[in-house]
């Protein structure tokens, strides 16, 4: 809510209730997801009735729009691809431009996001859905599995993300968990979680590397392990490089073979999904034998395709070489050489590919450590961290910010404020000045990435700092503070320093999801939810509404004079309606009343913001300002 943005970051007006609820660790993977729980530093993955720990990260929808997750959804993906979505993690926090096509066709049917929010929507089961919403379905399934296994409500979780995930993708992941009714205690980087599980299990000490090649992402992290301390020295990766890309290359090869044989395919999302599914089976078979073959039936025209391990390795060699190159540059960043590394831990299903193991072996001059299940180790580490955060522990995770954060300056050049591999949390500031006489506004463009030009980096947010007192060029002192929290999420604030008064502007990433969208999704999800889901949603909207009311009370007490009598009475009426709704049991009414109040108080919030800025910037006369700047 608009009014909430005025709070200090990290401050929660209402303490969270239910401290006794259990906290789990969740690895929300591109291909498979796992939930685990730790008791007395002994983590275990939670299984379903059939003993499987892995939940395929596939979501499908039945005729009435109910979500189906996991194995049954994967079966639907094969039969009726229009109703199912796989690998949604690759779309988290992404715009259309970030999505890789296969032979010109995407394995998803996609719409670009509405309005200012560029995150794509996936069309499946007859409706456009946000990747956040789809990920939330997977998380909901994991939550239910955990509750069934532990026979207690589970409301809190440590959720892992690729170390190289940017701000938008991290925010999207956190939003998805919230939508699933899980409070995220911490977003932990996947390689760090793996190192935690590995280190605690083996009592490892020294310099360790984690090579994590999953379904959709690659991470490489270098950690210093010592008596319960897990210190990440440097990390790097590629969020669009994984086993999915191996599948894509095999599928493209089969499709081009069909074309060569004169089977004129008209490719669409469904055929591409089918080809990918077969490609994946063939890839998995090649981990155990030297050759395989598959039958691809598209539009009633079957074709047969043979693939040897040699063919496959030739296809993927450039991708594997790229992972090794990333690993080398991470070592360089940390000022280390391969011989310094005591062991390389392999994580992620794609490290089962023999060529990957050989490449790691060659790059480090030693065979990688493969004795922990690469599919479960991340979730196990997350579970350990969940226990440590809620129950206390002696281990300490010190992680870093994966990508440089900076501002666009004159000429589109990026000025880095928080360099990559800076330990988090961290707060760093830089001063800027005006470049024109009498300039009263400055536009601030926050970017993330390693490139020199802002246009080549990811744009996180833009905002305008207005109300700068007119001065000669170069006299104003605009201080911009970047605060990165322990989840590697960024808050930017800017202030004109000569006045000495701070003015904070919280920045949301461009690809993030705002409150209205979140509310829409909650409504949409409600239609088919179970009863307990309803209860939780009701509780959540109550908490949200109470927070908004609390914020409103504070705002009225501080700046009530900004409102006319009519405006004030309108807001009071809307607030009374919301209070009544919170006391009753109708969640939709709470939502509607909150929305009405939000709309009514928008102008008020804007006026408060204006006043805040004016207060911050107009405390002194121009003459005084110049004298101060001169000293």
């Amino acid at each position, binding site marked *: 809510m608009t009014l909430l943005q005025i709070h*200090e*970051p*990290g*401050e*929660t*007006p209402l*303490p969270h209730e239910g*401290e006794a609820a259990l906290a789990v660790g969740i690895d929300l993977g591109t291909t498979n997801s796992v939930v685990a729980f730790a008791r007395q530093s002994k983590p275990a993955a939670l299984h379903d009735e059939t003993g499987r720990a892995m939940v395929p990260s596939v979501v499908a929808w039945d005729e009435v729009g109910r979500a189906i997750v996991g194995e049954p959804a994967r079966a639907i993906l094969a039969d009726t691809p229009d109703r199912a979505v796989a690998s949604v993690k690759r779309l988290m926090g992404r715009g259309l431009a970030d999505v890789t096509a296969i032979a010109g066709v995407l394995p998803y049917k996609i719409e670009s996001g509405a309005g200012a929010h560029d995150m794509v929507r996936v069309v499946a089961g007859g409706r456009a859905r946000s990747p956040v919403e789809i990920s939330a379905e997977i998380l909901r399934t994991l939550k239910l599995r955990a509750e069934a296994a532990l026979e207690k409500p589970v409301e809190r979780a440590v959720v892992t993300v690729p170390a190289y995930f940017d701000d938008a993708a991290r925010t999207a992941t956190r939003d998805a968990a919230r939508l699933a009714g899980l409070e995220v*205690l*911490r977003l932990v980087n996947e390689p760090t979680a793996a190192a935690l599980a590995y280190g605690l299990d083996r009592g490892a000490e020294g310099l360790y590397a984690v090579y994590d090649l999953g379904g959709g992402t690659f991470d490489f992290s270098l950690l210093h392990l010592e008596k319960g*301390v897990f*210190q990440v020295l440097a990390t790097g990766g590629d969020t669009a490089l994984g086993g999915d890309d191996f599948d894509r290359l095999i599928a493209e090869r089969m499709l081009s073979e069909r074309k060569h044989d004169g089977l004129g395919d008209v490719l669409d999302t469904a055929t591409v999904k089918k080809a990918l599914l077969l490609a994946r089976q063939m890839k998995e078979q090649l981990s155990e034998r030297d050759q395989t073959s598959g039958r691809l039936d598209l539009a009633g025209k079957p074709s047969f395709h043979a693939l040897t391990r040699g063919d496959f390795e030739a296809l993927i060699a450039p991708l594997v070489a790229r992972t090794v190159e990333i690993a080398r*540059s991470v070592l*360089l960043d940390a000022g280390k050489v391969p011989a310094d590394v005591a062991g390389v831990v392999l994580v992620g299903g794609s490290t089962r590919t023999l060529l990957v193991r050989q490449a790691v072996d060659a790059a480090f001059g030693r065979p990688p450590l493969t004795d922990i299940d690469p599919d479960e180790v991340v979730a196990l580490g997350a579970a350990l*961290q969940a226990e*440590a*955060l*809620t129950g*206390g522990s002696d281990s*300490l*995770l*010190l992680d870093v910010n994966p990508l440089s954060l900076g501002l666009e300056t004159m000429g589109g050049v990026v000025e880095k404020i928080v360099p990559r591999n*800076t*330990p*988090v*949390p*961290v*707060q*760093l500031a830089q001063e800027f000045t005006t470049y024109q006489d009498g300039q009263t506004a400055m536009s601030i463009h926050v970017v993330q990435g390693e490139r020199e030009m802002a246009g080549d980096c990811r744009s996180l947010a833009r905002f305008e700092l207005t109300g700068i007192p007119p001065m000669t060029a170069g006299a104003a002192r605009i201080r911009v503070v970047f*605060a990165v*929290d*322990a989840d590697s999420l960024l808050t930017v604030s800017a202030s004109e320093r000569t006045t000495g008064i701070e003015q904070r502007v919280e920045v949301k990433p461009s690809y993030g999801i705002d409150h209205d969208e979140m509310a829409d999704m909650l409504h949409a999800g409600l239609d088919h939810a179970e009863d307990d889901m309803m209860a939780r949603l009701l509780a959540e909207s109550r908490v949200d509404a109470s927070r908004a009311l609390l914020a409103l009370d504070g705002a009225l007490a501080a700046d009530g004079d900004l409102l006319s009598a009519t405006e004030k009475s309108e807001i009071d009426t809307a607030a009374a309606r919301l209070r009544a709704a919170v006391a009753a049991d109708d969640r939709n009414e709470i939502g509607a009343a909150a929305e009405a109040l939000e709309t009514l108080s928008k102008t008020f919030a804007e006026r408060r913001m204006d006043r805040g800025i004016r207060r911050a910037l107009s405390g002194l006369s121009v003459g005084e300002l110049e004298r101060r700047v001169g000293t």
Partner: protein
Amino acid sequence: MDHFARLGLEATLELDGAALDKAYFAAQRRWHPDRFVTRPAEERARASLEAAAVNDAYRTLREPVARAVYLGSLSGVEMPGDGRTIDDPDLLMQAMEDREELAECAAIERVDALASRARDTIARELAALGGFLLHDDKGAIRKTLLRLRYLEKFLEETRARRINLERVGPAR
């Protein structure tokens, strides 16, 4: 509180890496936000700020040149910001020659030799800086810090050049 005091260390140029790590881990054991997840909001906010300050101290003191520049600022020697003119003609001349030499390097071994020469110079300048700090010779401190900062930048450039050569050159 200055960075040294925050970690309970003596303000000195020759800082032992292991001692710094030990002090840093101890401070983070106390303040890291992971230890405050179930605490009230005010305590969480405070811990987050403390942990951020500890991280800032650590990343500043960890690198010898950053540490030297910081020690200089404690002695009242402020460095000009990036992109400002440098008033040391010898340094400018040296920088031009170094860059030319680097641009002409076609072999990785040549780049490595230049980097190694820069590292030796850094070590010499740091040793000299110790004396200037002791005698609070502000002019000499400033001049040395400028040189150190330049050398560090040059090292970064050799790194970039090396990566470029590795990419272009035959697979090793």
